[in-house]
């Protein structure tokens, strides 16, 4: 990453280009709102690039970005009450019927094009199942199975003990299995 420290605009742009999709995707799946996820992703990159001098080379660069992105996402979710987060309407929509009832609104013509896009992108069975996980589980499972990071790296990124990361990922997979089975019966 020495070239980034040189600080040429082209190098910064290349970093944004390389990481914008994974970072945006993680945040989008955490907050389920495109505009908000873009704001948080923007905040992440600005923090990373303006703070590039404090980057420690012994830390993987991608880990550093994801650490800042995850903090931005989790901070936001903590500030905001959980019951407005999910496209499913309420996180208490415990049964497939309840989820189905709220899902009907997704095709509503009154929606803005952006909301329609969000419904299309995050409306699949697996995306809805991910949305129902606790944010901490969600971050862990996305970093593990979507981004492919090792448990140790995730523990470092999220400032969690290794054992906790393993437990979260194991529980998250179990919960996903439950949701997926429910929806496919």
């Amino acid at each position: 990453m020495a070239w980034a420290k040189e600080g040429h605009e082209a190098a910064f742009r290349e970093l944004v280009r390389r990481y914008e999709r994974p970072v945006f995707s993680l945040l989008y799946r955490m907050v389920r709102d495109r505009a908000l996820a873009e704001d948080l992703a923007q905040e992440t990159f600005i923090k990373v690039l303006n703070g590039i001098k404090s980057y420690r080379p012994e830390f993987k660069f991608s880990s550093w970005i994801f650490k800042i992105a995850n903090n931005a996402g989790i901070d936001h979710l903590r500030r905001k009450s959980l019951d407005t987060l999910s496209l499913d309407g309420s996180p208490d929509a415990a049964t497939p019927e309840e989820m189905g009832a709220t899902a009907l609104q997704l095709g509503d013509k009154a929606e803005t094009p952006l909301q329609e896009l969000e419904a299309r992108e995050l409306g699949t069975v697996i995306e809805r199942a991910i949305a129902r996980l606790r944010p901490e589980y969600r971050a862990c499972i996305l970093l593990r199975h979507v981004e492919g990071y090792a448990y140790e790296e995730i523990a470092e990124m999220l400032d969690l003990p290794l054992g906790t990361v393993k437990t979260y990922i194991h529980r998250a997979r179990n919960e996903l299995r439950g949701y997926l089975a429910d929806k496919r019966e």
Partner: protein
Amino acid sequence: MNPTPMPHLTSEEIELWAQGILGAARAMHLADCSLCRAEAEQERKVILELAQLRRFAPSPDFADRVMAKVRIPTRSGEFTP
């Protein structure tokens, strides 16, 4: 005489198996144990679904908006401590 049964696969071993990288000796257990086999199949389905999730793109002007707010160090190196 039957050989001593091998212990069930751990969660981490199942994850390795789902990724196709569990050692053959432990993977053999799946042939004999329907319990682990059922568990492993379910885990593999979830892991595969997650691995196939798409990567979303932010708006096309995302990089421009970021760059507008980033301090670009000059070639003369003003951006040094």
